[in-house]
Every structure is written in C-alpha cells, then in structure tokens.
C-alpha cells in the first residue's frame, strides 16, 4: 500500500500502525451503529450554482467524523447545512433531507435557534466576541435565560475545563478575550460552544490558523470531547484527519467520493481519486 507508507514517511509524528494492526472485521462497524445525523440525497445551491450533489451519509453518535477534500469541494457548505447557518445567505436552496436524531432539521416545525444550541459550531476564523472571557462563555447560557450568577459561574468553569482552558485563564476571567493567544482564543470558542451543552459540535478547519502546539492541544481535546458528543470536523491536514477521526468522508467537486472508516480510507481506499488525494498527488 504505497499510500499509507507515503504519509508515514512524510510525517514522522503520524503512525498508522494501530490502524494496520487490526484489520476490519466488518465492512462498516461504525457507520451501522446508531446514527446521529443522517443526510439523504442532499443537493445544495448558491443561487443558480450547485455546490453539493446528492450527498448521502450518516454521522455516527459520539464519534469524530472528518470531511476532507480539495478547496472548494463543498466541505464547509455541507457542514453549515447541518446547523442551517446557510440560511443566512440569500438565495440558497437545499434539496433532500437532513435528520438529527431522526427529525428533519429543515422541517417547518424545527426551531432554528433550538437546533443551533443542539448543534454547536467552531469556525476556521477564530471569533471570540470583543467581551470578557467570562461573558464569551456565558453568552449562550444567558441567551437560554440563565441569569443566576452562581449557575453561570459553574457553567463557565465547567465549559472552560471542558475546553482545557480553565487553568490558563481562571485568574483573568474578566479580562478581554481578545488578549488571549490564537490557540487560547480557539479553545475559548470551543468552550463557548460547549457552554450550551450541544449534542453535536461542528468544526470547520479549527486548527488552520494555529501553531503545532495549539493544534496538538485541540486534537487531544477532541479525544475527550467525543466521549460526550458527536464531532464533525473539516480539515485540510491529512495527518490530523487520520489522527483524530473515526470516520472520514472524501469530497470532490461537491460530490461525496468515499465515506468509510478512517483506517480504511487511509490504508486501503477503494477509490482511485481518494488515494491520489491523500497521497498528495492532487488537491
């Protein structure tokens, strides 16, 4: 398998050894387990321009799902469909069904703000609000009507701990969030998303602007996070996808080319284009 060997040699920190050790006993052990989100035959249009073509996949509960693919292939678009953030863009249209726990999120009965508290999001561009660290984290809970100081304090502490930031900021909670480093700001954004107790966390290239140490911290975080919630992450970093995810989807020009166990995708992809992409032959 030239592909996996290539990657290992490119990046000494990454080993796929553990993936190779255990051969897949069943074709889709993860995908068949209880799905959190099911996407059926989704077509997405920006005005006249179609950005997604018949996407069908299921995202497993309490696992990390990675979307990879070359720039402009529609990863962010699909991710933003999952919490209906694309609704903000005028002239967008979606065909097909996306269900969260079996409930169609594009149904008229769906409360969008409710959906968005259940499906949180962390963005590529680090975006803490120009408020204090405390206010950033407390923002979501306050929107839900939590006003009691003690309760908010507890949520803030829990969320910051969940994002691995508590120790670093506990003495400066009331200072501006913009005084933090880039990596700390991104973890603050994660804490902010965690504060509303989401079931799903969407991450759009959360580490693309961060240094290796901050990236490692966030990757470590993902391992603990997936015990609580379902994570969907978009990344351009193959090693990262291989390290952190359980399932990987490869996209090309708005189409889902291959969707499988991360192990399988990186060791034995069934599509030629996937192999070309992860070995760096294009994209």
């Amino acid at each position, binding site marked *: 398998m030239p592909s996996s060997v290539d990657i290992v040699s490119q990046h000494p920190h990454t080993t796929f050894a553990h993936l190779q050790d255990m051969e897949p006993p069943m074709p889709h052990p993860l995908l068949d387990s209880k799905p959190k989100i099911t996407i059926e035959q989704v077509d997405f249009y920006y005005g006249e321009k179609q950005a997604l073509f018949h996407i069908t996949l299921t995202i497993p509960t309490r696992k990390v799902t990675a979307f990879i693919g070359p720039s402009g292939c529609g990863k962010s678009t699909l991710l933003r469909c999952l919490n209906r*953030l694309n609704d*903000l863009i*005028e002239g967008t249209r979606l065909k097909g069904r996306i269900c969260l726990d079996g409930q169609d999120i594009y149904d008229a009965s769906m409360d969008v703000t409710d959906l968005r508290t259940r499906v949180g999001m962390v*963005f590529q561009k680090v*975006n803490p609000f*120009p*408020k204090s660290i405390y206010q950033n984290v407390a923002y979501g809970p306050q*929107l839900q009507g939590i006003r009691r100081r003690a309760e908010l304090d507890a949520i803030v502490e829990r969320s910051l701990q969940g994002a691995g930031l508590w120790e670093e900021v506990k003495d400066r909670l009331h200072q501006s969030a*913009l005084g933090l480093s880039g990596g700390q700001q991104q973890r603050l954004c994660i804490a*902010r998303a965690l504060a509303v107790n989401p079931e799903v966390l969407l991450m759009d290239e959360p580490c693309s602007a961060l240094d290796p140490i901050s990236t490692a911290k966030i990757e470590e975080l993902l391992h603990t996070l997936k015990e609580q919630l379902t994570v969907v992450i978009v990344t351009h970093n193959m090693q990262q996808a291989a390290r952190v995810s359980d399932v990987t989807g490869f996209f090309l020009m708005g189409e889902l080319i291959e969707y499988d166990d991360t192990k399988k995708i990186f060791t034995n992809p069934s599509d030629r284009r996937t192999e070309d992409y992860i070995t760096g032959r294009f994209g």
Partner: protein
Amino acid sequence: MKKLLSSGTLFIWICGLGVAASLLMVFGLLFLIMINGLGFFWPKDLVELTLKDGTTVLGEIHEREIIPHSISPELPEGKGRLLIKIGNRDLYGLDFRWVDEQDIISRAKPPDAVMLERREWGNFYGRVSRILRGDRIVASGTEASWQVLPQLIERANALQEEIQHVEKDLIGDLNYQIEQARLAIRAHELKGERDSPEIAALKRDIAHYEQIYQQYVAKLQALTDQLDDYAVVMQDTSGQETIIPIGLIIKALRPNEMDVMEKCLMYLANVWALLSEEPREANTEGGIFPAIVGTVMMVLMMSIAAVPFGVIAAVYLKEYAHQGWVVRMVRIAVNNLAGIPSIVFGVFGLGFFVYTVGGTIDQLWYPEALPNPTFGTGGILWASLTLALLTVPVVIVATEEGLASVPQEYREGSLALGATKFESILRVILPCALPGILTGFILAVARATGEVAPLMLTGVVKLAPSLPIDSHFPFLHLDRKFMHLGFHIYDMGFQSPNVEAAKPMVYVTTLVLVTVVVTLNLTAITLRNYMRKRMKGAAV
C-alpha cells in the same frame, strides 16, 4: 520631471500643502477668537488724554488704527487714531470715541480714576466726588468717598439679590400657581361646570395667593426704597457731576491702582460672571448663562431624539431590509436629506411641528389656555426635533458604516450559539458598532450646535423670560422658548444698537460656543476611543 511625477513626491507635497493650509485657517480662526474673546475679561487701565483743544478724555483704549497717508496727507506718516471707550452713555450718548493721536498733548493714568460697572447705561468712568444719603452728605472728597463706596455697593448687591429672589422665585412661583389655578378653573368651565365646589376652592386659592402677592409687593417696595437710600456723586473727566444711585452699581474699580494679582482675580471673577449671569442691556452686557443652558439642552434633546431613531433606522436598513433597489433608493434619499439647506428644515419644522402637531396638542390637551398657544408656538421641543430631523441622516450613515465594519464571523458565531437575529444585533453587533454610532453622534452634535437658521423659526428668542428647566413641576418645560449661543451671536453682532460695545461680547460668545461644541465632542471622542480600545482588547 517625469520621474518627479511618477514617484509621487509632487503629489505628496501638494497634499501636505493642502493640509497645512487647512490647519492654518482653523488655528488662525481659533487664535483670532481667543485673542479677542479672552482679552475682554482683563480689567483695562484707564487713560486720561489731554487734547489740543484743552478738553480731556477718560476711558479704556480699545484699538489703534494707522491712518493711511492717502486719506489725510496733512498728517505725518505712521500717525494713527485711538478708539477709546469713554462710557458714560447717560451723559455723552455714545460709549466710544475715536481720537486722533495728532491731537493728543499728554497721556496719564490717574490712580484715582474709577470705573463703575452699572446695571443700566453701561460703564461710568470718572472720579468719586461725594456720597449722599437722601440729601445729606455722608462722605465727601475723592479718597474718603472711595473708602466708603465698597461697603455700600456690597450692601446694595445683597439687596439686589434679595429683590431678585422675591421677584423671580417668590412672585414667580406665585404667578405660576395663580396661572395654574386660573387654567384649572377654565378647564372646569369648558367641561360645562359653573359653580362646582372645585371652582369655588380654586377661586379661594387665587384670592389667597393674591393676598400673599400683595405682601410680597410691599416687601419689594421696602427693599427698593432701601436700595435708593444712598447715591454717589460722580465727576466725569470734564468735571461734570452726576448722581448715581448705589443700587445701580454692580462694582467699582480703580484699575490703575490694581496690581497684576488683583487683576488676575478680577479676570476670573469676570469670566465666572459671564458664564453664570443673565444678560443685561439688550444682551450687550452681563452674562450668557441662559444661552449656554439653552444650547446644551437643545443639543441633548436633539441627540435623545436623533440617535435612537437613526440607529434603529440604520439597523433596519442594514440588517433586516432586503438589499434591493428600494433600500438603495432610501439610502440615496437619506444622503440627500443631509444636504438640504437647514432653513428648509426650519420651515418644515414650523409648518409641521409647531402649527400642525403643536396646534393639535393644544386643542386636545390645553384647550383652557387657548387662544394663547402652549405647544402651538415655537419652543425648545420643536426646535430640538427639527434639528433631530436635520441630523438623523448623519447618524444613519455613520451607524450603517459601523454595522458594516462588524465582522461577519461575529454574526455567525452568535447565531451558531442559538441566538436569534435580534439577540445577536442587540448583544453583539450593536456593541461592536458603538464606535460608529458615536461617530454619528459626534457629527450630529457638531452640526446641530452650529445651526441657527432653523431655530429662528422654531423657538429661539432674543431674551427668554425663564429657562426651559426650573424647579416647577414638571421641571423640564418643553414648550418654553429658549436662548441659543449661535442666535445670541447674530443678535448682538447685527441687531444691537450699540455695535462697538457688543463686539467683545460677540467674540466671547463665539468662544463659548466653540468651547461647548469642543467639550461635547471631546466627551464623545473619549468615549469612542475607550470603546475602540475595549474592542481591540487592550483595556478593561
């Protein structure tokens, strides 16, 4: 040459020149206003000039002017003439006089020359001769009389203050209450009641008030009599004598005897008097306190009306409205609104606010006062609203720019946390746009403070009998007419019978107006910088 053009050096020089020229003009203007305005408070020395024809002139030198050779060839080159403030308007009819330097034989600064600041007729320059009580001489001789004078003036000023208190506060209150009772009776009568117990009670109240009023009048008479007890006999430079009641004198100085320290103190006292006192003598003397209060209040009320309205409009245009051709047209209209001459707004304010809205309010809520208008005439409320109309486009444009500068990531970040659009706007977007909103506020204030034309149609007056804010319920009287620094400048400078006397006041008032604008702006700018710093995370 080509290189010079393409390198852009020339262009940079032209830009620099432009900036320098603008700065020069601005600072030149400020400098002129400062010099002329600040000099006004300094107690000037009194100069006594002896002229060729044997007469003398006593007064303050205000200006010196070179007479061009071409006009009077008989004079030697470089000779000029002096503008002397001779005061004593009751004697001479004019306060100012030009004296050719050619005619002056000698100049002196007599230490015993006295300047009296009076409540009427302007200053008096001369020497103290005697002090009278009725017909009896209390003190005679320049020095002896001068020794007595200060205490007498102090006593008179105290009396004046008391008279003021009785007139303004006590009788003013009483009049207000009588008027209220009268209106209440009228209201009852309009409802068709004739002799209800309420009317009887009100009539009894009025009778009671009128009794008190008589007492006050008696008290006032007693005070005024005391005031007229003493008088000072003054001698002008030619020896002519005049009797001046002490009650007419505000202060007496011998400026030629004062040292620098005393003059400095007097300077500060003069500044304070200007800022805190009411105007006298057709606004050419005394203070400008009511105009300052009127200006500041009007600007604040304008802001209260314009800023929220403009912000709401901008939020709708930017965040909610579908960005189609309608919104584009609205935007163009708003921008054009900012360019309409302000007098047009004045006419609109008069027609719409004063006559239509005010007239309707009067008919509905103040019928008892008719035919006297309450809101159906110019007043501070209508003036403020007219100016708000004038400045709202500025606020809209600035706020829209502020909103546009809020990164899209903040909106998405907020929505992704389950906020509604409204919550996002309220809690994230507007706070981030605050610097832009404050910029709009600053521009609006700068524009509104300087406007005079629309105010003249909607409520500004030369002399307002009472401030728009006082101790009578409801404390803020939106229907009252008010005074305004800008109008004050126009009125003194161009409508006053005594232009020379008003000139320094014009400069001083201009200086105060500029100071008010700068202070309001600096406050807003400081606030904005603080907000900006907070946005960048440097502070807090």
